[in-house]
């Protein structure tokens, strides 16, 4: 803590100050954390850079942070380096200075920089050009992507020293690699910015694209060094290796300075009076104060006290609602006054956004309510406070949103307003999760065959495949893929001589970098353009059947047409504004389970991971009101047939005796006296709760969305013959997530147990903050919190 005296009550710029002054205070503050300031650690550039370059850096930038210096030292040693430090710790300088060094050694040297978004690319193009010109170096940095005009492309390929692009582009450009031959032949550095964002299906496509790229570079006798810059993730070394196929030196000792700030962990009040012990999902939603409304009241209070505040919301609609709620809250505030607050999101016109940015920067606005559009890069100056409406999904985004507040030496405040969601509630219970060092792993499932197979076709088109390519493409697995494609008529030849591509030209254009199955649905919007990647068949069936409502980039859409039986399946959507969501009911079976790894835990408990077939039939759906949770329409059939998913899954088998133990403990009766439906409600509810809870809390360990997973629990599975619950990857061929859950079952089971035991919901059916899940295909029936705890306790005992 700093030695500053407590600020006066009229300026609630600390967590305690907020507690004391907030007019509707009812015990919302669950935890207050002060993060003390930390001075930067610096190194004289002359220690790591040549004299000339070091002189210019000293003059233009000053000293280097220790992590920058350390990364540059490793690069000088020829290592591939992953820099995993905090946001705005100057990671760009690492590769920029390496480019400068390479250029000074060889003016023909080139570098390829890959960014995750086009917007970031344009931004960095300008910054890097300015940086190099400040250093007096004639290095030209050019963006080359889908927006680059055709008539400039040749010139950029042939003259730029540094090309900035993205992986969607690289996938396509590799088909024409000869046109880039000069660039490839001189390429000394490949920088992958924000490398932690490459996970899941997209991560797999990127990982294989990078291997194809490195293979073509090798064809032109190049083996560039690789720099990955990453947010702080749990496994930077492993992730970089799986992403690129190379081994990395990790630099994660952050030398950048940090300001002092308070973080308030804030729980919107729940009106317990409304909730009986048998309250269902909807009733819980109704009882809790809408977190957006609560956050807006905090915004109004801070704003009226002269604390300029940026509030983050999860959707565009909530950004707009937040601004309205805040104005209303200000007028009913005790020292009521006028609050100037504006919403901000990508759906607003460019001029509106520039105007809001300017007004905020020049302090004409007390507050802005924004989607994560303001999270990355955009300069709106600094502010006193930020409010997070809900956990943004990853620790890195959490800190990014927190980190926006703070000016110079003065105090900064961040308020995390929790939603009624298992992860948000878990964080309230255990703030150490976000404050401490335990962080999510970034997972790339290289084992997914459908994605792998597509890239093998591309690689063959780019250059005939030979036996030497087993090194790039996972050994003997290449032989299997080649044989499959030869039988399918897309490749010809054999690896001992050469395998050539014989399919229709440019297989690269058949790849959608965000999906894994052969069948994808294009998304079309009736009334306007929609910028949405094609959807995998499995997801389309689950979330995008006709009549379904969904959010994309914060805008709500309804699916009005679903066409599958054509060569290019599509869904057509229409923008809607409604206070409803869709609940889809499904029947699921798991069969043909084939374990690849098994851990005997003793006493009849067993963990397994492997492959299997998940058959899901999304049979009916209905719409419900977001606020009341009551159905606004009767159940309607989806009209869809069942679909099969051949994917990876992990499962937990328990001894049959667990059923009697759990029933005896909870009902106090011998199980022989209980009916089948009692067994389903109690023991079935325990397995079901354990399955839901583990799925819901896995994002604490892995960078992912819980919709990347699905589950099934059963008191006797036909293939295992015992009580079992399954967690499966929700994508054809798998994502690699279930393998990690298998490896980290103990941690995930313990976190789940902790959350369920600490949840303050009444009764035993759980609530959205513990084991209820809006994606449940069984309408959250049956769930039993006490039985869940017993099931988990027994499992944890064996782990």
């Amino acid at each position, binding site marked *: 803590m700093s030695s500053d005296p407590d600020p006066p009550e009229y300026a609630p710029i600390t967590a305690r100050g907020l507690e004391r002054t907030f007019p509707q205070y009812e015990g919302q503050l669950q935890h207050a954390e002060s993060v003390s300031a930390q001075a930067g650690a610096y190194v004289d550039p002359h220690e790591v850079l040549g004299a000339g370059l070091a002189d210019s850096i000293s003059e233009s930038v000053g000293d280097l942070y220790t992590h920058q210096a350390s990364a540059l030292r490793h690069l000088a040693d020829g290592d591939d380096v992953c820099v995993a430090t905090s946001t705005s710790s100057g990671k760009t300088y690492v590769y920029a200075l390496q480019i400068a060094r390479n250029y000074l050694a060889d003016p023909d040297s080139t570098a390829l920089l890959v960014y995750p978004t086009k917007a970031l690319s344009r931004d960095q193009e300008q910054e890097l050009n300015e940086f190099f010109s400040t250093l007096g170096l004639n290095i030209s940095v050019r963006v080359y992507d889908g927006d680059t005009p*055709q*008539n400039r*492309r*040749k010139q950029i390929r042939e003259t730029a020293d540094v090309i900035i692009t993205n992986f969607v582009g690289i996938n*396509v*450009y590799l*088909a*024409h690699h*000869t*046109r880039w*031959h000069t660039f490839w032949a001189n390429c000394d550095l490949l920088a992958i910015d924000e490398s932690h964002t490459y996970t899941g299906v997209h991560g797999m496509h990127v990982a294989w694209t990078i291997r194809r790229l490195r293979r073509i570079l090798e064809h032109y006798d190049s083996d560039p060094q690789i720099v990955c810059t990453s947010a702080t993730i749990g496994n930077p070394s492993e992730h970089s290796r799986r992403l690129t196929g190379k081994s990395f030196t990790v630099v994660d000792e952050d030398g950048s300075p940090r300001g002092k700030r308070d973080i308030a962990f804030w729980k919107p009040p729940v009106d317990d009076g409304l909730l009986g012990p048998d309250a269902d999902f909807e009733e819980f939603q109704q009882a809790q104060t809408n977190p957006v409304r609560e956050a807006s009241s905090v915004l109004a209070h801070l704003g009226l006290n002269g604390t300029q505040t940026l509030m983050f919301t999860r959707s565009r609609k909530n950004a707009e609602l937040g601004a309205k709620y805040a104005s209303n809250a200000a007028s009913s505030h005790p020292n009521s006054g006028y609050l100037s607050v504006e919403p901000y999101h990508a759906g607003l016109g460019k001029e509106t956004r520039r105007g809001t940015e300017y007004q905020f920067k020049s302090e004409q606005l007390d507050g802005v309510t924004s989607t994560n559009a303001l999270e990355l890069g955009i300069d709106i100056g600094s502010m006193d406070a930020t409010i997070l409406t809900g956990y943004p999904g990853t620790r890195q985004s959490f800190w990014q949103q927190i980190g926006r507040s703070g000016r110079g030496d003065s105090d900064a405040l961040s308020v995390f307003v929790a939603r009624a969601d298992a992860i948000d509630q878990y964080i309230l219970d255990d703030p150490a999760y976000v404050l401490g060092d335990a962080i999510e792993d970034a997972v790339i499932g290289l084992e997914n*065959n*459908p994605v792998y*197979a*597509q890239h093998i076709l591309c690689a063959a*088109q780019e250059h*005939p495949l030979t036996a030497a390519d087993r090194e790039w493409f996972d050994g003997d*697995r290449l032989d*299997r*893929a080649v*044989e*499959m*494609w*030869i*039988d*399918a*008529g897309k490749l*010809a*030849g*054999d690896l001992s*001589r*050469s395998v*050539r*591509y*014989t*399919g*229709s*030209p*440019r297989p690269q254009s058949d790849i959608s970098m965000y999906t894994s199955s*052969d069948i994808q649905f294009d998304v079309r919007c009736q009334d306007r353009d929609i910028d949405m990647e094609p959807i995998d068949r499995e997801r389309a069936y689950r979330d995008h059947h006709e009549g379904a409502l969904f959010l994309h980039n914060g805008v709500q859409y309804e699916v009005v047409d679903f066409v599958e039986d*054509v*060569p*290019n399946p599509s869904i057509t959507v229409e923008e809607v504004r409604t206070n409803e969501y869709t609940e889809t009911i499904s029947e699921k079976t798991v069969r043909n389970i084939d374990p690849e790894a098994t851990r005997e835990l003793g006493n009849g408990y067993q963990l397994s991971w492997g492959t299997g077939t998940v058959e899901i039939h999304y049979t009916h759906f209905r719409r419900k009101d977001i606020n009341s949770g009551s159905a606004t329409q009767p159940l309607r059939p989806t009209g869809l047939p069942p679909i099969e998913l*051949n994917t990876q899954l992990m499962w937990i088998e328990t001894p049959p005796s667990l059923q009697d133990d759990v029933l005896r403990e909870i009902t106090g009766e011998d199980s022989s006296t209980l009916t089948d439906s009692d067994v389903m409600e109690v023991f079935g509810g325990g397995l079901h709760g354990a399955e839901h809870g583990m799925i819901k809390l896995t994002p604490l360990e892995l960078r992912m969305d819980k919709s990347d997973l699905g589950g099934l629990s059963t008191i006797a599975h036909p293939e295992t013959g015992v009580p079992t619950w399954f967690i499966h990857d929700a994508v*054809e*061929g798998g994502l690699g997530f279930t393998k990690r859950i298998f490896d980290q079952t103990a941690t995930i089971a313990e976190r789940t147990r902790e959350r369920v035991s600490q949840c303050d919901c009444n009764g035993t059916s759980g609530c959205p903050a513990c084991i209820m899940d809006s994606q449940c295909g069984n309408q959250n029936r049956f769930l039993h919190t006490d039985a869940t705890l017993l099931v988990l306790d027994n499992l944890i005992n064996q782990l």
Partner: protein
Amino acid sequence: MSASARIACASPQFVDQAEPSLLDDWLTYYDPSIVLLTGRSPEPRAASHLRRQLDSETLLYHPASDAPASGPRRIDGVQFVLSPTEQTLCKLREYEHRDLNVDRPSFVLSGLLELDVDTTSLSTTLVGREEYVSSLQTNQLEGEYVHISASLPADYRREWDGLSVIGGGIDSGYAGTPLVALDCRDDGRVLTRSVTRSQLGLRALDQVGGKRAQQLREAGFTSREDIASTSTSSLSDLPGLGQTIADRIQQSATAIAHDEIVRKSDDPLPNGDPVYIDIETDGLSPTITWLIGVLDGTATDGRYLSFIQTNPDEPGRAIEDFLAWYTANASHRPLVAYRGWKFDFSVILDHIIEYCPHYEDDWNSTYRFDPYQWAVEKQNAILPGRTNKLEDVAAALGYERDETGLTGAAVARTYQQWMADRSPSTEPDWDRFESYCEDDVRGLAVIYESLAKSNRIVSTNEPSRDITETTTQQRLSDW
């Protein structure tokens, strides 16, 4: 010349959606002996739709129909066995000697073989193969058989343990897949021809897409001949068809009906005597340019040279030899290739970079010209012919080529086999390939000369090289 019988393949979806005049145009274009209706269900509507369009000579074969034709047939001197079910396959042994000459190959037509590509388990299955093979009892058969299945895509060709399997075009004419025809030759080879839907019927006309074709039909113009013989004013009266577009449509119909070039602009062709080229590769994603045919001079009297590489281990030789000749003898003359910007020029550049990069600058400074791009894409002229393919345009302009029994794809396939296995049995008949290539460059010269003759304005003495032109053209094919 060996006997050949043509099968035109059509998916039921194509037949269902096509208006009678389009079916008629398709059948006229291919003039098939057999029409193969694909699809796995009886499709009575599509079948009767087709039957109405077919003359009595043409066999309609739909393996999935309720009462399909079956048994041996001799069509245009080629032996076929129609095998809608495995039962017919069992009878092949009976047919041998009685109905089938075992010294000649036979084509077995069925819908019994289908592909299942399972990328999750990394395996491809030819569904139905086991039953198929056990019904055939191959070890007791004397003749040579080629198996065509209507349940496989048209570009599918593969040997499955001695079973030679060819796709019968399951999606033919549906959703962007071209309409294919299979020329079954009595030497056992099958040549695939293709035409897209938009090259048929009214849509073959300049400025006419699906909507306008419908509009024209509704106004009573059902064929290109109708339009060629009408006045432009009767077209321009139609809503949304101004004078300019009506002119273009009418001229295009005239070009096709009268086999003549219609010039649309005064843009001159390049100055200087052209050097016509055509290349042969190992496929549509080529790794080698092994033959460059060059015509130096006019269509009738020009000297034909070919730069050929029979050894696949020296993939750059043909290009290098050609460039040595060109830079020494013709470097000031325009290089002309039909659809050059789409294929030949770009493949040559790729292979120069790959195999003889020292020629890259020489190549970049040549003046390259693509009559297809100039006429069709830049709309300087309307070409005659049913399609804009070189052989169709040249034929419409009166060029008669030798029958070599080859297609570009067949040439590439033969070279691929030679690359994979260099034995006397796979060695290509090089002379035949050279004359196939010569036919193409002479046809190209015919087109170019006709374009030159059709000039509305005689070209003046402008500088012979127009670099800006070259860069714009490259822009069009840039990625």
